[in-house]
């Protein structure tokens, strides 16, 4: 449900303007016949009725994109995009949007090529068809045709529809998004038609600014998703030195790693981060984290908690010293506004059990990805999820983010 609401709000806030920049031409064509026929009518003083064709246009567009979403979801079920290919797709979309904005600013003729025009045979066909049809059929037809020229934000949403990997979810996602774009599309199209060409020019400049910003944001989210050092956050961090990685800067206490042992038991009141492992079995990736007798790096406190004998229940016999696997556990809180902490420090050369904990989370931070490991999981709004991460070399970093690259974080490895 949340993803549909997010899609709707995305459409409402950004999609409408972005789509209008790209698809405005088709809408104008569908309005042109209505305006022309109204103007050719006897009373030239009568204002053309544009509300109705805009509505037909939008209804048709809504239906067309819902069907498209269905097929994209189906495509996603066949061909699952990994985080890196999604990041590349987002960067390309961002470049496309920036190109569109520069075209609208008329910066250089080369940017005109960012404008996707329908093939001549289609426009010719539509034009000739529209002559003999009612003012209802033309906008309906044009609205459906917008699937051929999706705007940048729509393309992002289309990529998300593919990522759902489910035809019905994909259809609902696209429906929610296009429904969200519709009010803005309607209002702006209605008033732009009424306000005349001069104001429309100003409006297009405004759209250009918005599309430019959105384009840069889209590129940035793509870079975040890739864990690129060129992302805005990493660049500013490098300039200000705020994301400099050094072991000295860490308040981590001697990151000693304890072996995982059979029948290991820890008093959870003393060490709440440590749970009792009844059978000592390892937690496979993707299972809810219920057990784990291991050293825990409490990432919030940046402390390493090492289970000791004093922490074990006194009645228990000493643990059998049969190390099965040494690993460190890192807990990251998944929040509505991102991940906490954003920077986590871990010991190099030791595998990690990364525990993602969420509590009533309703944002895209639930779609967690580690691009370099090709890990992508959809977390539950409330719950705990464990990901096994192999040992990493010292000095390396493991960036992670939400699937849209909006919320980011990094695990830093050092000795």
């Amino acid at each position: 449900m949340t993803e549909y609401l997010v899609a709707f709000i995305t459409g409402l806030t950004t999609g409408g303007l972005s789509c209008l920049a790209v698809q405005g031409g088709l809408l104008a064509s569908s309005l042109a016949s209505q305006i022309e026929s109204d103007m050719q009518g006897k009373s030239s003083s009568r204002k053309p009725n544009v509300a109705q064709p805009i509505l037909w246009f939008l209804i048709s567009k809504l239906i067309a994109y819902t069907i498209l979403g269905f097929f994209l979801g189906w495509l996603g079920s066949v061909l699952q995009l990994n985080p890196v290919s999604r990041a590349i797709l987002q960067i390309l979309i961002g470049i496309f949007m920036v190109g569109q904005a520069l075209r609208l600013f008329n910066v250089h003729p080369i940017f005109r090529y960012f404008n996707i025009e329908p093939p001549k045979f289609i426009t010719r066909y539509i034009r000739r068809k529209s002559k003999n049809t009612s003012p209802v059929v033309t906008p309906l037809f044009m609205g459906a045709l917008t699937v051929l020229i999706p705007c940048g934000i729509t393309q992002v949403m289309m990529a998300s529809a593919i990522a759902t990997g489910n035809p019905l979810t994909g259809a609902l996602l696209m429906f929610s998004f296009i429904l969200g774009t519709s009010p803005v599309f309607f209002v702006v199209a209605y008033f732009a038609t009424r306000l005349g060409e001069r104001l429309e020019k100003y409006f297009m400049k405004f759209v250009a600014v918005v599309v430019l910003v959105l384009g840069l944001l889209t590129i940035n989210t793509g870079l975040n998703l890739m864990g690129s050092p060129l992302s805005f956050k990493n660049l500013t961090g490098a300039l200000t030195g705020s994301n400099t990685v050094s072991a000295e800067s860490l308040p981590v206490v001697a990151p000693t790693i304890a072996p995982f042992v059979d029948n290991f038991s820890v008093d959870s009141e003393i060490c709440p981060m440590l749970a009792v492992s009844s059978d000592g079995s390892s937690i496979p990736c993707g299972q809810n984290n219920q057990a784990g007798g291991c050293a825990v790096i409490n990432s919030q406190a940046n402390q390493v908690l090492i289970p000791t004998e004093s922490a074990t229940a006194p009645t228990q016999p000493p643990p059998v010293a049969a190390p099965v696997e040494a690993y460190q556990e890192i807990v990251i809180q998944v929040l509505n506004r991102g991940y906490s902490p954003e920077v986590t420090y871990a010991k190099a050369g030791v595998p990690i059990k990364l525990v993602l904990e969420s509590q009533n989370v309703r944002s895209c931070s639930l779609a967690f990805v580690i691009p370099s490991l090709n890990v992508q999981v959809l977390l539950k709004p409330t719950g705990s999820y464990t990901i096994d991460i192999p040992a990493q070399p010292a000095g390396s970093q493991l960036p992670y983010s939400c699937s849209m690259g909006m919320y980011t974080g990094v695990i830093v490895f050092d000795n």
Partner: protein
Amino acid sequence: MKITYNIPDMHCGNCAMRLEALEDELQGVTSVNASYHKQQMVVDFNPAIISEEQVIRAIVEKGYSVSQS
């Protein structure tokens, strides 16, 4: 007769679509190929039926400035 015109006012692909509609609207015009990318349009017309001035006037009436390439 085929003439290429520069149309510097085209600001989107829809302008090209509007100009291409002249091939249906003007008698004697056999084809119009407008390119937003090149800011040009190529008009193929029969001078025995329609004059060049009439073609230019029709373009201007659509709201575009025009010069011969």
